[in-house]
């Protein structure tokens, strides 16, 4: 067995700490993520899926338990410092790109994810050909808008760009929180295909939240059901392949 790339040990989070309304959101999450895992995550609204991502990403501190990256404790590491090995795509297309900067400028920012940025000249022209080629892999005309401010792009193009930016510099862990939910069915399918293509050919380790049970079954090698702040089921390999929508749906009843 190889060492997990990311490990959560009894992770708990509280909201409204110290008030009468204090509630536990994550109630002891134990999870081992191995290199190359592509895990889809499903669960009811409010189950704590986004909270789980926020704890992994570091913009929410765990109130109990431990998070390990390659065996190293990162429970107290800041959100900014975790970006050295972690990338994420948000659900809202507006959150992933800088609207007044161009497509190419946004991509350039992403090539230095988690690195120190110095007072040296940006190398925009030198990277243009490479960026344009990458943009073309998204099959949505992004490559023709390299010098357009991203604020002028369609939601689908922005989200495709966000995804490209998250993978431009290879992350150890990629977090996708319903990253196609704001898109029309066709655009959404297009981006999902591209996502799957990139994750499998590059052997990325990724976690993808989705509300589409079919997608959760189609993609990835592992599926996790989150319910009321706990992992209710964890289907791996073979077990995931034989899983059906009907069986999965039972976790959403009552």
């Amino acid at each position, binding site marked *: 067995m190889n060492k997990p790339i990311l490990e959560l040990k009894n992770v708990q989070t509280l909201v409204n700490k110290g008030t009468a309304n204090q509630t536990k959101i994550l109630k002891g999450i134990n999870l081992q993520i191995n290199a190359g895992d592509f895990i889809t995550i499903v669960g009811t609204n409010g189950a704590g899926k986004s909270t789980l991502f926020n704890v992994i990403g570091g913009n929410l501190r765990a109130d109990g338990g431990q998070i390990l990256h390659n065996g190293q404790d990162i429970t107290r590491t800041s959100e*900014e410092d975790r970006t050295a090995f972690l990338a994420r795509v948000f659900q809202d297309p507006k959150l992933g790109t800088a609207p007044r900067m161009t497509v190419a400028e946004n991509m350039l*920012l992403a090539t*230095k994810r988690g690195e120190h940025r110095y007072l040296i000249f*940006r190398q925009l022209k030198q990277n243009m050909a490479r960026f344009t080629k990458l943009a073309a892999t998204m099959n949505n005309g992004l490559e023709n808008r390299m010098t357009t401010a991203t604020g002028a792009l369609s939601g689908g193009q922005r989200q495709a760009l966000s995804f490209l930016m998250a993978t431009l510099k290879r992350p150890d862990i990629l977090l996708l929180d319903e990253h196609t939910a704001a898109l029309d069915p066709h655009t959404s399918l297009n981006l999902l295909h591209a996502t799957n293509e990139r994750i499998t050919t590059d052997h990325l380790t990724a976690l993808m939240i989705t509300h589409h049970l079919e997608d959760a079954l189609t993609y990835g090698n592992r599926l996790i059901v989150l319910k009321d702040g706990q992992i209710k089921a964890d289907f791996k390999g073979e077990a995931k392949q034989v899983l059906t929508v009907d069986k999965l749906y039972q976790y959403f009843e009552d």
Partner: protein
Amino acid sequence: MNLIVSAIGQGLLWALLGLGLYLTFRILDFCDMTVEGTFPLGAATAVTAITHGVNPFIATLLAVVAGMVAGLVTGLLYTKGKIPSLLAGILTMTAIYSVNLRIMGKSNISLLGQPTLFNGALHNLPQYFDSVTLGLVVIAIVTVLMILFLATDYGQAFIATGDNPTMAKSLGIHTDKMVIVGLMISNGMVGLCGALIAQNNGYADINMGIGTIVIALASIIIGEVAFGELTLNQRLVAVTLGSIIYRIILLAVLQLGFSANDLNLISSVVLAICMMIPQFEKQLNIKKPILKGVRPHE
């Protein structure tokens, strides 16, 4: 003719204020009230230093440092203290008023008979050409430095911080640090502006900061209205041109019979009209950073 030259000279010197505010207000989306205190702080520091026998050039540098410290204070109040940006700036600005009185020891200091940056090598120029020359040199240097800075990896991260802080953080950019650095550079420039204006006027006055934020916004907005769609670098140049146009407008207004005491009233009215006309507001986007300024920092 002399009046026009004077207005151009004033516009060039005051453009530093607009450029300083451009960094925070436009690029960082941060409505920084500190400048109302930093401007007289720069003036007080430079004038007091000069009257104590300090070389005017060193005295001007001291004013820049003083301005940067003021920016640092606002930055810390906002990022570490979680105080909304508007209030953080007002707190620093108010505190600086007392600091300025401490520095100067009284409410007005004259530079009569003292050396200044304007009566060194520039002394032999015809009237008002001293401020035009020094203004041009300083603005050229500052604008070029800003353009170079914004084109670096660090500068791009700075722009991204103002444009989309969530995204910036998710790319590992330390946005709090960026805001602090931006406020320091910006207020350093405003301190420099205060020092130059004081030396040009020949005195520092405790009340000379009143209305500076409106003047700065006016030069930014006049530049944007006059020149329309521009690249970032062109926009920086447009701020200086806006500042000069603003001075020429004031000159015209004074010719109409208003007095210098009416200037703040006129500046406010012009800016208010810009903000009330919906097409203008949509294009100029003035309210957003101000509204944002009343929310605390997450």
